[in-house]
């Protein structure tokens, strides 16, 4: 039986980015609120990799930070292994759950303390969870460094002595050090060249099989997402607009925005297929368009789309928030016949 490790329900996070009151009075301008995450729901089963994709600024990192507790939800809930962690108080009551979640941050520079030696950075979660004692701690650190393609002797160095990709691998080693069951990976390989990336992704897959790990994976690289995920969710302006099994999503995407994303994949073969950039201006999450927030860019938008927010509905194993899909007026996808 499949077991839900994580359930996110109607999760919301708004940020107030208004100028200070005095400036607003003097210079004019009202309150400004960024709706970074605006009602997101999904579930992740144990042993799965659930990926979030979507344009820059659509709220992926904010979802990740809400899940691991770095931000508190404005509304909605995060349940981990059946325990509600949405409210700060309930999260504080469950340190044992918290300790089993780890996060690899999008920005490897900001997340490594420059004054700590790499060995101590990686050892910290091992010591915190008392996974090893004494000399065994540094032995384990050495093993982890080797796993990510660095050397045990790198433990004595400081973060600034490493290249961008090497630092990213240090943060991966640190995240793995705490033996998490659930790992949130925010662009974990973005600074890595293809060969090291392949090494790290293969390693993550192996660990997942061995230890039955569950991943929430964020990447803008759709080829990587295709390769690692069991399920994929597409976000647009703070909302999840479609999610389904990886093969289904790539083979027969339903939401017009998912289709645009796939059409924009760069052409590595240089076959001459012009990639279609996602058209239209990305709206600001400060003043999102009413109704379906994708409507100003959507070729299938009608009057209803401009006023009514589409609900996420299930079509077989596909979950999609789009009126055109619901009304059955969406044309077939280009590859649908072949898929």
């Amino acid at each position: 039986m499949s077991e839900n490790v994580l359930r996110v329900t109607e999760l919301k996070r708004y940020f107030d980015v208004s100028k200070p009151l005095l400036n607003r009075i003097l210079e004019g301008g009202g309150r400004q609120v960024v709706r970074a995450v605006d009602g997101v729901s999904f579930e992740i089963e144990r042993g799965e990799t659930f990926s979030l994709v979507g344009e820059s600024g659509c709220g992926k990192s904010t979802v990740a930070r809400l899940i691991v507790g770095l931000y508190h939800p404005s509304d909605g809930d995060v349940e981990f292994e059946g325990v509600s962690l949405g409210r700060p108080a309930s999260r504080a009551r469950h340190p044992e759950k918290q300790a089993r979640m780890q996060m690899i941050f999008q920005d490897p520079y900001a997340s490594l303390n420059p004054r700590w030696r790499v060995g101590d950075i990686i050892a910290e979660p091992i010591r915190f969870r008392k996974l090893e004692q004494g000399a065994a701690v540094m032995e384990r650190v050495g093993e982890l460094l080797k796993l990510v393609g660095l050397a045990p002797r790198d433990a004595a160095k400081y973060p600034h002595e490493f290249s961008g990709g090497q630092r990213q691998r240090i943060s991966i080693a640190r995240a793995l050090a705490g033996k998490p069951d659930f790992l949130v990976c925010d662009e974990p390989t973005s600074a890595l060249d293809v060969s090291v990336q392949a090494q790290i992704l293969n390693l993550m897959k192996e660990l997942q099989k061995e230890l039955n790990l569950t991943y929430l994976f964020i990447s803008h690289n759709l080829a990587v997402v295709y390769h690692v995920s069991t399920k994929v969710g597409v976000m647009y302006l703070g909302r999840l607009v479609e999610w389904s099994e990886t093969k289904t999503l790539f083979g027969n995407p339903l939401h017009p925005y998912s289709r645009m994303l796939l059409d924009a994949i760069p052409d590595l073969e240089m076959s001459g297929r012009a990639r279609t950039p996602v058209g239209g201006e990305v709206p600001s999450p400060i003043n999102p368009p009413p109704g379906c927030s994708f409507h100003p860019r959507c070729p299938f938008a009608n009057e209803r789309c401009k006023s009514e927010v589409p609900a996420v509905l299930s079509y077989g194993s596909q979950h999609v928030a789009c009126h055109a899909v619901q009304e059955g007026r969406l044309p077939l996808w280009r590859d649908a016949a072949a898929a």
Partner: protein
Amino acid sequence: MATDRSNVPLLEVSNLRVEFATRRGPLVAIDDISFSIAPGEVLGVVGESGAGKSLTGTAIIGLLEPPGGITAGEIRLAGRRIDNLPHDEMRKIRGKEIGAIFQDPLTSLNPLYRVSEQLIETIRTHLPMDASQARARALTLLQEVGIPGAAERLDHYPHQFSGGMRQRVVIALALAAEPKLIVADEPTTALDVSIQAQIISLLKRLCREHGTAVMLITHDMGVIAETADRVAVMYAGRIAEIGPVQDVVKRPLHPYTTGLMGAIPAIGHDVHALTQIDGSMPRLDSIPRGCAFNPRCTKVFDRCRVERPDPIPQGRTAVACWLYDGAGR
């Protein structure tokens, strides 16, 4: 060696060597590399993590910090030698003539100042503009790099932006003073494909319209394939292969380049594991004798273990590999 379209390169790097002084003697991080970039040209620089890409860029913009430093070679910008300039003079060149996009966005952004303040300051330092002209230019720049709602965002602080937005603010800062050369270190890593496409076409437009030269460091071969005119493949502090992008991507000559191309994941190809090049790049303190790639090379032969290959011209490409030495095996 290089096949420039113009006779006067904007950037010329010859026999550059970068070392780190350590207690156990110098560590050679960049070992005798030469290349040039013509006005309006994009040179892509690729290679495994730790190959020396960022250090090469840092050396060009004059920001190597002790114990690191240039120990041999020359760097010329529009014919003028810049690797031995005093600090002050180099600072003037940076920003005005060379725009730098760092791999680490936090190097360029001050968390305590609004994005508008940082952009306006850079613009006014280098261009003759008053405050309101500079603010207008700052807004245009943010729009050009695709920040949605740029007018509302202009006065926000860096932490209020998403990762990819911060990266674009850094790009806007680098372009602010209309530099002749842009050294862009992984400028699109945190960006999704559509924004990537927008940044790429912005860079290309600058090259076309203003003759800007770009050194584009990235591990993303897709970006290279679309943007670069030529590409240099780096390995262990040296250039393994350099040539026109079509040749290097489609018909790689160096065994390392061939391996790099195989490790790219592709949609629709179901593979259990991605191809890896076995082993890993040597660290600076253990670079093998001869060809640095020899322990991982499937084509290795005796000579590779003793003699170090220098770039050998092959058509429009140059390859540092003994397989292409006329003198042969």
